[in-house]
């Protein structure tokens, strides 16, 4: 399917704008996440660039109407490239008082505030812990408040279908959706298709939701409360075929692609944990792709199952979030010791302990690097956006197989649940991953399970291979033979070999690139999911003529070999992170660079504005006009 065929045209005045940031907020039972996903898809299909930020409570059904139960979904869609879901909102749709009170502060002054006025009765205010009606507060004057009886209008729209009041009210979200579609000139086609498919077995519900959607659109068109709508033109994305993709989905697809590229079966061991579980849900759908999913009894069994499968010759993967990675630590050490390839994915969330399960954070970097006993290095790479998760998964397996080592992929809650347009690749155009298993005699007369190739990788001999019987285990190995050895010099040698092997990954990864001038006042160094915000902030500062460049790290262990050189080219280095300074600690220790941090752990991604402010405070204004050319 290409562009939508039936654009719905409004007879009212239409204002063309370059981008819109809108947040849909309601009760976690109100279907806000579904709305957000639909708006994202629809906007992407219109050719907009899109970035999203779903934000929901950890409780599945937090008490209705309370602040704790508020679920939000923010979307930025634009006719230019966007890398973040937007700092401030152009519009907020609040389905109840709790949603209003917990979200209005992010709304731009003068921004559009749409509320369901039927949800502001005394009992609703009480549930939201409010003494007075916020719609009567003086601050409400700062916004363009539009009160719409969404509940009543929805009930009317579905009145003759014989639904209960409760069932009717469940369609409120589609009424709001229709209204938003009218407001921003979106076609309803994709959502209508979605409703048809999703409720195919419930014709009544299907009909009701369709009607609510239509009614919302029609209300926008006829009401005097909304004088005009907006239009956002297609973005100038590079030519090609696109689809929307979410981070966890992209990880799953990347893993499947990596298996295909290496002609391996994918063994995936996992234990459910937020926000990584969607990878399991996605992968278990594709059994006909040679994907074997194993929902283990715990995190430890999940990785140990993967280790067993890796020993057997499969492409082995385990995924989790911070708490689960902590449990896997000992087994990760075993994988390092027995030098079997596997991919370990950590979708980070707020910590420590159970922390903030549904909120994002980048505080597992030091855990995955060092959270094991002994000297147990392994390569670590981090995905920077939902679509980038696909490439990261493939690269992780490429490295793992080439070096016979577990490789950690870092993602985070923000990337995992976020969505963006993804240029659809052709699997046939991705470089294959060549893996060779030795056979009897292929490695000389005597088989040495811990012999080394030019990168120091050992041979991956798999059970069933005649003549290559060998034993691996967690005890220190004798160099070459792999037999148990407690020899002091041998231990030193093996620790060195394992470290050098991981360091050799630097030969296989690309040189670090910098966006902006090669030398200057400030380098902003970021990693993982903060790329979009950092890139946007640096671009804006560059447009102001500031001497600042952006360097985004994908490889956190080992670092790209030219990183030290890059760091030396700038007067200052700023490292923004959603933690208390973990990469900064590594960079300072490794390169003796006096890097500064911009650190935040509030369960939210960075805003562009705050980063720009920080950059402005560290650089001189409007210097060197020639530098602005480097932006882009």
């Amino acid at each position, binding site marked *: 399917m290409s562009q939508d065929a039936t654009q719905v045209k409004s007879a009212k005045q239409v204002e063309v704008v370059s981008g819109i940031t809108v947040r849909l907020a309601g009760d976690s039972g109100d279907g806000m996440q579904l709305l957000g996903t639909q708006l994202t898809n629809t906007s992407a299909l219109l*050719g907009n660039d899109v970035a999203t930020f779903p934000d929901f409570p950890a409780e599945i059904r937090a008490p209705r109407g309370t602040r704790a139960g508020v679920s939000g979904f923010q979307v930025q869609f634009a006719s230019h490239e966007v890398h973040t879901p937007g700092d401030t909102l152009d519009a907020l749709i609040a389905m109840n008082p709790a949603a209003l009170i917990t979200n209005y502060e992010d709304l731009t002054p003068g921004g559009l505030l749409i509320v369901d006025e039927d949800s502001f009765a005394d009992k609703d205010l009480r549930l939201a812990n409010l003494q007075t009606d916020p719609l009567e507060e003086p601050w409400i004057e700062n916004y363009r408040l539009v009160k719409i009886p969404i509940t009543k209008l929805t009930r009317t729209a579905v009145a003759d279908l014989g639904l209960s009041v409760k069932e009717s009210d469940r369609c409120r979200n589609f009424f709001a959706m229709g209204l938003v579609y009218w407001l921003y000139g979106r076609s309803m086609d994709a959502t209508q298709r979605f409703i048809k498919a999703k409720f195919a077995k419930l014709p009544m519900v299907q009909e009701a939701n369709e009607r609510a959607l239509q009614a919302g659109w029609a209300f926008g068109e006829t009401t005097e409360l909304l004088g005009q709508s907006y239009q956002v033109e297609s973005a100038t994305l590079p*030519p090609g075929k696109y689809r929307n993709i979410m981070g966890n989905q992209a990880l799953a697809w990347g893993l499947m692609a990596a298996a295909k590229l290496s002609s391996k079966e994918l063994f995936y061991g996992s234990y459910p944990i937020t926000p990584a579980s969607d990878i399991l849900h996605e992968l278990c759908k594709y059994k006909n*792709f040679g994907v074997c999913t194993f929902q283990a009894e715990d995190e430890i069994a999940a990785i140990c199952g993967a280790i067993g499968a890796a020993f057997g010759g499969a492409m082995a993967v385990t995924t989790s979030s911070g708490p689960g990675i902590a449990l896997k630590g000992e087994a990760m050490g075993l994988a390092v010791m027995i030098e079997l390839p596997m991919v370990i994915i950590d979708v980070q969330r707020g910590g420590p302990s159970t922390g903030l399960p549904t909120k994002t954070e980048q505080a597992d970097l030091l855990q995955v690097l060092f959270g094991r006993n002994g000297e147990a290095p392994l390569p670590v790479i981090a995905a920077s956006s939902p679509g980038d998760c696909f490439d990261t998964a493939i690269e992780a397996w490429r490295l793992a197989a080439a070096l016979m080592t577990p490789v950690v992929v870092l993602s985070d809650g923000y990337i995992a649940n976020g969505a963006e347009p993804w240029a659809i690749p052709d699997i046939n155009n991705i470089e294959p991953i060549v893996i060779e298993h030795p056979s009897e005699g292929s490695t000389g007369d005597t088989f040495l399970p811990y012999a080394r190739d030019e990168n120091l990788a050992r041979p991956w001999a798999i059970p069933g291979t005649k003549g290559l019987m060998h034993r691996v285990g967690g005890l220190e190995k004798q160099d070459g033979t792999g037999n148990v050895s407690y020899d002091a010099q041998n231990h030193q040698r093996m620790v060195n070999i394992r470290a050098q092997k991981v360091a050799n990954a630097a030969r296989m990864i690309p040189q670090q690139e910098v966006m902006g001038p090669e030398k200057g006042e400030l380098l902003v160094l970021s990693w993982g999911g903060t790329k979009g915000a950092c890139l946007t902030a640096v671009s804006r500062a560059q447009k102001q003529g500031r001497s600042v460049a952006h360097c985004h790290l994908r490889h956190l262990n080992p670092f790209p070999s030219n990183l030290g050189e890059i760091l030396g080219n700038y007067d200052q280095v700023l490292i923004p992170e959603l933690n208390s300074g973990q990469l900064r600690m590594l960079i300072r220790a490794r390169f003796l660079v006096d890097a500064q941090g911009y650190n935040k752990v509030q369960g939210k991604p960075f805003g562009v504005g705050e980063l720009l402010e920080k950059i402005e405070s560290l650089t001189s204004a409007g210097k060197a006009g020639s530098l602005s050319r480097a932006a882009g």
Partner: protein
Amino acid sequence: MSTELPVLKANDFASDQDVRWCPGCGDYSILAQMKKMLPDLGLPLEQIVFVSGIGCSSRFPYYMNTYGMHSIHGRAPAVATGLRVARPDLKVFVITGDGDALSIGGNHFIHLLRRNVDVTLVLFNNRIYGLTKGQYSPTSPEGQITKSTPMGAVDHPLNPIRVALAAEATFIARSVDSQVQHLASTLYRAAMHRGTSVVEVYQNCNVFNDGAWDYAKEKAVRADNTLELENGKPLIFGKDRDKGIRLNGFKPEVVDLSSGISQDDLLFHDEKADPIYVQILAGMRYPDFPEPIGVFRDVENDVFEDQVRGQMATATEKKGVGDLNALFNSGDTWVVPETSAAR
């Protein structure tokens, strides 16, 4: 396979590594019986994998000239599960101990069994932590004085057979390290079972818990203190085979066969009987009862990896071999034409 397999001997299964258990340890006998039994399976060396956890017994794979993995404490069942699912062509053994399987690895032990993964698990039960030099284990009797229980253990011990039964194990057996014939034949039957087979072996740790199983091992008393299970035969024991087990309600009782009680009054062993029967057998403990040795239970159930791979095959049959390009291009897509980029 069309090529004929060479006939292997026990010695072919020995690796080049020196065995490093304490002299006199019961582990030697289990190793010897394993090597003696393996040729009967008719499998080449490379088709066999030994996976172990941590503990004295878990050094076992190093001594076998097969594939092997000495993994981490308690986790061998999980490693073996992944291996079997990925490679159902391999014969997989799990070597574990009372601490490894029932304490740190208790969770993996029960989940291996309830999934019925096709592996043979040999649990070396010496009722002590040997490798860490003598702390009490989850099978140490109450009151046992050890390095970590100077006033006696206060934990109630676990009964491995009961745990296995509770986890729906399809094959449960018990043997004794020094009963070499019995041990070899029990291991063979376990290895031939499809699904998880558990063999508890009474193993003497002569350094830290010497004599723990003397009642079941010593020639003079073992016939009175153990009862060899034979399928379809009445439960009879004793040096003179003059004692039997009869059921009184749900309780077993020892009866004297010379006192006019006939064999027909006794319990007859049935490896396929209801779990309640196995429960009764497992509850027979020294000194009140002779402890059964042999195969407690041998039933069939679906095997985990068959099911897992079966679903993969069914999905492939129904939908065809997955096509990644088709998947990537499924659902809502849109095209950004060449010209629009030039805008």
